[in-house]
């Protein structure tokens, strides 16, 4: 497998359904999807709350959230590493070098993206429907689910952006996961490993498989969205 066309190798990897590769693909999806689900659960209401409520330091919160979208994965990984290391405050949980640690690190990376985009979308929508909602006697708190639901198609893009960041990053999962064969090895860390072994065609082939995977997730989300829109008429 050392020499050859990366596209041919990628095709071969997919057709062979190599169990090692399937395990790596499965773990990649599991870790990133879990991180995105948790980040969406926390980030969507958080963004909406920042959009609707006025509180001291709100400007700083908005700017901070936007800035955190650029948090380097390596830094996020290092922070989680220091937190979960036995020498760190949460060391007794024994989570370092487990998929759970990878989920925590990726959640940290995805949360700002989802929250910041949710804030923007909900804020725009609130401007539009403010009077209508207030005339119905709806409080700001009770407006949050209504607005989130109404903005769901726009918010999906934010969630998918978060998934893109999670599935593409290598810095954080490498540090907190340790790239352990069969335990914490995901697509991106496997690509980094094959690159460092000088097996560039295989590394590129894995990259192609990862791209196809991300496209598959995005296409699925798109189709579900289209179908839902059509049903609503």
């Amino acid at each position, binding site marked *: 497998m*050392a020499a050859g066309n990366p596209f041919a190798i990628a095709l071969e990897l997919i057709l062979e359904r190599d169990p090692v590769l399937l395990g790596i693909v499965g773990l990649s999806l*599991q*870790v990133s*999807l*879990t991180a995105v*689900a*948790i980040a*969406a*659960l926390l980030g969507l209401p958080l963004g909406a709350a920042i959009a609707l409520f006025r509180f001291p330091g709100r400007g700083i919160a908005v700017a901070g959230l936007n800035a955190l979208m650029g948090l380097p994965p390596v830094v996020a990984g290092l922070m989680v590493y220091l937190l979960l*290391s*036995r*020498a760190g405050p949460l*060391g*007794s949980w*024994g989570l*370092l*070098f*487990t*998929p*759970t640690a990878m*989920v925590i690190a990726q959640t940290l990376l995805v949360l700002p993206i989802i929250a910041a985009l949710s804030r923007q979308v909900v804020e725009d929508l609130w401007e539009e*429907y403010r009077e*209508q*909602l207030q005339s119905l006697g709806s409080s700001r708190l009770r407006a949050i*689910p*209504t607005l*989130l*639901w*109404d903005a*769901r198609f726009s918010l999906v893009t934010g969630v998918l952006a978060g998934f893109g960041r999670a599935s593409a990053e290598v810095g954080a999962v490498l540090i907190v996961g*340790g*790239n*352990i*064969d069969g*335990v914490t090895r995901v697509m991106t860390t496997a690509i980094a*490993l094959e*690159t*460092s*072994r*000088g*097996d*560039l065609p295989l590394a590129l082939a894995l990259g192609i498989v990862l791209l196809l995977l991300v496209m598959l997730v995005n296409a699925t989300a798109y189709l579900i969205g289209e179908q839902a829109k059509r049903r609503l008429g």
Partner: protein
Amino acid sequence: MLKNPGRSRFRRTLGCLVLAAGLLSATIALAGKPHITLASTTSTEQSGLFHHIIPTFTEATGIEVRVVAVGTGQAFAMARAGDADALLVHDTTGEKRFIEDGYGIERREVMYNDFVIIGPSGDPAGIADAESAIDAMQRIAEAEAAFASRGDDSGTHRAELRLWQEAGVEPGSRWYRELGSGMGATLNTAAAMDAYLLSDRASWLGFRNRQELVLLFEGDEVLFNAYGSVLIDPERHPHLKHDLAGKWHDWLVSEVGQTAISEYRIDGEQVFLPY
């Protein structure tokens, strides 16, 4: 557009999200066999040695070995912090200090191979016929030929710095490029810029992107590269799996373990020699 049914559908969606997150994290939490975390070097992992010997060990004992491959400096740091159950590195001086500092209780020599000096096939510094490794390093410095250094406080980096010191060369000029990377990344970079470098033999043999690089100098005693296993002090880190780590430590130097190590080949060449 703003309909009330939205509320209940929102709740349902929320419920689905919670359920999905819960299910996904639950499957992740399921841990398997008894296992230890081994802090080791990139050279052993990338050479493929662990792929060869760990299944044999796991079959015999039922213990899974999870390898975190980092530079030797970081491996020591991991072990000191209590994040690794076992340690297998190649820095004899560092290993002894680790024990003296009270972090380890026993060190055993597991295997050895050697460092080799790699460079572009044109060999601009003419090191192929150098009399010794020190001489080769001096020739590189005199020719001011590009040299790629790991620069990451790994075992190989430490060995390289010792060679420069003995050669009486203060590296740091323009020709000396400190990469701060692992062995593989350093080999890739050196291949791209036709630079000399010091590599352990295992990484070199397993490396697939050589381009113009060839092995130019080998066989000097000072290039000896010994790998040692260190038992971590149970009193300092009582939470670690010392029983299981002890079995691994003993197995490595047992007859079965030593045979497994000596049987490992890359392209027909033996990579690690047992003691």
